[in-house]
């Protein structure tokens, strides 16, 4: 049984549970990405450090589509950083080829190349003797932008990362909190609107609350800019939350699985990946499915006053069901009107359905 047609609503009604009334709360949400990203291709890339006999990265190949947000996830020391830093040649590959939009990066001037690749590292590395505005202006200056254009860009970017230009442009990095500094780090990397961004555990040093906030903001930002992003993390949950596709890496940067978060959660390729997912795979999957994408019950089935918005996830729904003990909970649309209801059965059916269908294209 296949379930990969575009109009999943209709096919579900036919092939799924005909006894149940089916309500899709919204019409299709357009997910056509607005991308300014580049295509990146790594082919048989190897890196052997100095005199070491064991390579840090061995025969790494990967194709990244324009506008994709790719997560490299794996334990510390597995070679994530090394792999990522070969793309802007902060680390020179020992062998293999890397192309960005078809151009071989190894044949380009490394400094020129880097001016067109945004770079964010965990330690942020803001220049302490420069103001926030000066920090963000570095690449535009290197590219010879006019003062006027640079200044406007600085203000624009500070607003994008939710820092008030009037307050922050003239400050020094030390005068900012960790989360604010990290935002400046992202703004600085975006300064010249590069098609590619490399991010090495960019939110790794922030506390969990700030981190989650930064992740949400970052996702929203990526939706509008559509860069091609390689994002390194050792936190699988972060990878699930942010990534279009996740590469689960083991020693020597070996790709154990490279797929969408939903597919990896549903069908881990091997024990290594499964152990990396850890407990609660089902819950993690539920968090990825918004209510508007799920098969729900009639609005009239809803009990009690508790309700959720259709943009909340199935996991939020489950949470509320467990918390209230109600059999069914109302789901509201953007205007706040209850348009559907959700039950525990419907939630688990959604998981089972997904697993049974095994459609690889569900999220793409």
């Amino acid at each position, binding site marked *: 049984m296949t379930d990969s047609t575009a109009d999943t609503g209709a096919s579900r009604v036919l092939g799924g549970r005909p006894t149940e009334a089916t309500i899709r709360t919204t019409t299709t949400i357009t997910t056509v990405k607005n991308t300014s990203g580049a295509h990146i291709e790594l082919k048989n890339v190897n890196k052997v450090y100095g005199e070491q006999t064991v390579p840090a990265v061995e025969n790494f190949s990967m194709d990244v589509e324009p506008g994709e947000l790719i997560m490299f996830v794996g334990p510390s020391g597995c070679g994530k950083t090394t792999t990522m830093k070969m793309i802007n040649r*902060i680390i020179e590959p020992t062998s293999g080829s890397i192309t960005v939009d078809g151009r071989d990066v190894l044949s380009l001037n490394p400094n020129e190349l*880097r*001016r067109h690749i945004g*770079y964010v*590292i965990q330690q942020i*590395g803001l220049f302490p003797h420069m103001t926030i505005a000066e920090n963000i202006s570095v690449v535009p200056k*290197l590219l010879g932008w006019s003062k006027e254009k640079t200044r406007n860009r600085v203000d624009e970017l500070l607003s994008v990362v939710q820092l008030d230009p009037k307050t922050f442009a003239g400050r020094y990095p030390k005068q900012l909190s960790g989360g604010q500094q990290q935002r400046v780090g992202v703004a600085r990397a975006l300064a010249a609107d590069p098609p590619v961004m490399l991010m090495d555990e960019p939110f790794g040093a922030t506390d969990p609350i700030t981190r989650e906030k930064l992740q949400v903001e970052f996702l929203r930002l990526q939706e509008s800019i559509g860069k091609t992003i390689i994002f390194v993390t050792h936190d699988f949950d972060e990878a699930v939350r942010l990534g279009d596709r996740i590469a689960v890496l083991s020693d020597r940067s070996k790709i154990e699985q490279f797929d969408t978060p939903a597919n990896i959660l549903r069908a881990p390729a091997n024990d290594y990946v499964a152990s990396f997912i850890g407990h609660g795979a089902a819950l993690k999957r539920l968090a990825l499915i918004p209510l508007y994408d799920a098969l729900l019950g009639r609005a009239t089935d809803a009990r009690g006053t508790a309700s959720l918005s259709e943009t909340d996830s199935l996991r939020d729904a489950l949470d509320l069901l467990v918390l209230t003990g109600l059999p069914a909970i109302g789901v509201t649309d953007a205007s706040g009107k209850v348009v559907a209801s959700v039950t525990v059965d419907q939630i688990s059916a959604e998981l089972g359905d997904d697993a049974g269908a095994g459609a690889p294209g569900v999220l793409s």
Partner: protein
Amino acid sequence: MTFEAVIERDVSVAPAELGVRRARFWTLRRIATPIVIVLVLLALFLWIQTLEIDSIMARTLNADYILLRTREHLELTFIASALVAVLAIPAGIVASRTTSRLLRGTILTIANIGQATPAIGFIILLAIIWQIGFQTALIALVAYSFLPVLRNTMVGLSQIDPSVTESARGMGMTPGQVLRRIELPLAVPVILAGLRTSLVFCVGVATVATFIDAGGLGDMIVNGLKLQRFPVLITGAVLVSCIALLIDWLASIAEDLLRPKGV
């Protein structure tokens, strides 16, 4: 920066800015140093007024002679320090950049020998094998005060957070741009501290220049000893000390003013 300006700045900073506010500019030491210098010089002057000046003393305890020797002394000090800055900072950059241990070792060894050799021995040896006079004294001074600047340049560059230089490289700065725009500005406080040390060294060691006929306030000290005229000796010694204190004071102000903001 005036006193008022500093006060005003202190009041106007927002709480979030407190982290970056520099250490206080007008410390007790900073205010006291010039006062002490003036008082000591004044005391010296008044004391000399009370003395009976014989003809031997009169040859040195007069304004023309003292000004001439002081000028020679300052010339030696500043020219030597300028040469040290011009030579030792680049040497420090090379020594910290090179992957050749031999080169780094050689630079450091030479600088160490320069400082470890007693200044008086070095200057006299140099005079014997080369010539007496100003140039020889200058070379001896440079050799002697080279190490602090060299070492501080190396330390200043090495203590920069590697993530700062990595992100500079990652943004596409050339190695030269990273050095000029990021590393050197961040190393400025440490390098200046080295220059300050070497300036003060120079003031002291320049007294030895008199032995090879290169002038300076050492003349007064040596004359005072030779001719057993202690007021002359004391005047020379006090003047040298006051100059050293004054230069250290000025250098400490320069350090504060030239330190990059935000650091």
